[in-house]
């Protein structure tokens, strides 16, 4: 279902050797990246990792120090922002406060001097897409945060851009609302088929929405892959630690990342020799569905173990000696050690 579809033949982006210096500081360092037409790609990283700088270069708001950006094979390096035809949802939405919702959404078509009727029809369509039909004549200030976010999305999609850039669009929303909007966003992405390039520092957001995730650190791509690949097979300590939680185990042949939920735990001596480590429960934190157990192991850092609350058969207590075990595939050897 692609009723609001963009020109589906367009929207493939190639970044090659993309670099940005601010004085002596390198914000983006020689990034090569192919973004597939119609995919939902997330740039994930902590603040200062260069993800927003990268997005701003794609949008055309920042000059490129070195490298190139290609849209469907053609360089857009020298195309100014207003002629790139990329939609963008800004952090804080950047709606036009003096215009109605309708005028906000119709703006891109209006500045392109499209006929009034066409604009009105398209605005109706977009309002429908983001389920704000009732709110067309309000000003942005009269809307809730979630509604504003949807207006920003509709505004950016109204001119059917081949690429939509989203800069932490959910950052201002509370957690519950954020999850709701994530679903809507994903749904809209599927309906319009536009290439989404999404910047966030929220790993859960990245995992739940993206086709592929780029983990960035210090201006470089740390790892690129589907959510599942990244979660199951982190290549670096940073990737393993940033996307989900990991215990790091130093073994004779290197460092392994081990997700807390993949560890079996039993009272000391009950694992019948399959125990890989033994230790003592130092603390238990209850989260409802899961409990986090911190296990002190002699000669190592504390190991975190997640246990489904309903499955905690042993009624483990603080101070209790425990055995820890895991399957061979659970621990992933990291390449950067």
């Amino acid at each position, binding site marked *: 279902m692609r009723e609001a579809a963009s020109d589906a033949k367009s929207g493939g982006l190639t970044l090659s050797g993309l670099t940005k210096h601010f004085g002596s500081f390198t914000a983006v360092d020689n990034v090569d990246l192919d973004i597939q037409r119609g995919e939902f790609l997330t740039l994930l990283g902590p603040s200062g990792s260069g993800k927003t700088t990268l997005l701003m270069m794609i*949008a*055309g*708001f920042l000059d490129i120090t070195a490298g190139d950006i290609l849209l469907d094979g053609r360089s857009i390096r020298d195309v*100014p*922002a*207003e*002629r*790139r*035809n*990329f*939609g*963008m949802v*800004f*952090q*804080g939405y*950047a*709606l*036009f*406060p*003096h215009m109605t919702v309708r005028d906000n959404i119709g*703006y*891109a078509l209006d*500045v*392109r001097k499209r006929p009034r009727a066409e604009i009105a029809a398209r605005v109706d369509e977009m309002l429908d897409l983001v389920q704000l039909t009732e709110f067309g004549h309000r*000003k*942005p*200030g*009269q809307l809730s945060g979630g509604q504003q976010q949807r207006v920003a999305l509709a*505004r*950016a999609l109204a*001119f059917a851009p081949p690429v939509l850039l989203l800069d932490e669009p959910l950052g201002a929303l509370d957690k519950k609302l954020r999850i709701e909007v994530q679903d809507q966003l994903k749904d809209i992405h599927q309906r319009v088929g536009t290439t989404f390039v999404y910047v966030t520092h929220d790993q859960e957001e990245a995992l739940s929405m993206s086709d592929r995730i780029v983990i960035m650190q210090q201006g470089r791509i740390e790892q690129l892959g589907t959510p599942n690949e990244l979660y199951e097979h982190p290549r670096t300590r940073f990737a393993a630690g940033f996307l989900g939680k990991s215990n790091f185990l130093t073994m004779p042949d290197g460092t392994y990342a081990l997700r807390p939920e993949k560890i079996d735990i039993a009272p000391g001596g009950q694992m019948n020799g399959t125990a890989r480590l033994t230790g003592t429960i130092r603390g238990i934190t209850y989260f409802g569905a899961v409990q986090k157990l911190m296990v002190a192991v002699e000669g190592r850092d504390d190991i975190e173990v997640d246990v489904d609350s309903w499955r905690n058969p042993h009624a483990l207590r603080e101070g209790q000696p425990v055995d820890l075990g895991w399957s061979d595939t659970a621990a992933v050897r990291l390449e950067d050690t």
Partner: protein
Amino acid sequence: MRVLGRHISPGWLLVAPLLLVVLAFYAGPLANILWLSVTDPEPGIGNYQKLYQTDALGRILWTTFRICLITTFFSVALGYSVAYAMVHAHARNQHVMLTFLLVSFWISVLVRTFAWLMLLGRNGLVNESMEAIGLISEPVRFMRNELGVLIGMVHYMVPYAVLPLLANMQTLDTRVMAASRNLGATGTQTFWRIYLPLTAPGLIAASLLVFILSLGFYVTPAILGGGKVLMVAEYISVQLLVTLNWGTAAMLGTLMLFSVLALLWLMSRFMQLSAAFGGGATR
């Protein structure tokens, strides 16, 4: 006391002495002016009737209004450019520019007025230079006329226009302008459709400030106008100190006061004044 306390916040008690001082030394004299305007030289509205009975007053008020309006237009237009340049300048240059702006506040109006005479007077730098290179054969009359008054007043008022505009522009979310560009609007379109409307509160505040301050201008018109441009402030002063027509002076003072109040009221119908002067935020 306790009953009273329930209705009056204790905060009022703290500011009460100050309020009394304000009432006594501000509202009191003001009321006295109103009183004078209907009692001097004799009780009645004779002073106000002069407004339409004599051409002179009408002409003075019209001159004042016209000059203030033109001054406001050019001051705010120039101030807008200056503020825009300042907001978009590098932080270090911004400091330098702000310093120059503030320094200009400390230069007395008289010094500036005479500086203009030296620069644009009959034998001023500009006329002499233009004559020397053969551009003109007769000195251009920049000064001692209405043009001179406008030049002097606009020059004085530009910094006053800059400050509210600067305050307004600094609060703008630059992402909004970026959004406009991103949506395909050119720089010009972005300016007219987004930037200008968003700086409307600053424009209104600056215009009000400049217009109201211009109403009280005295020295500049008196000197640069060569005596031919008589504005209401100078006229009030003359009636007050020279011809002793205190009733006329009070009437004109009252008129100016209520004109300014009416202006503010009118503006408040369209927007929150506190927003215009950088108080509360409005959407």
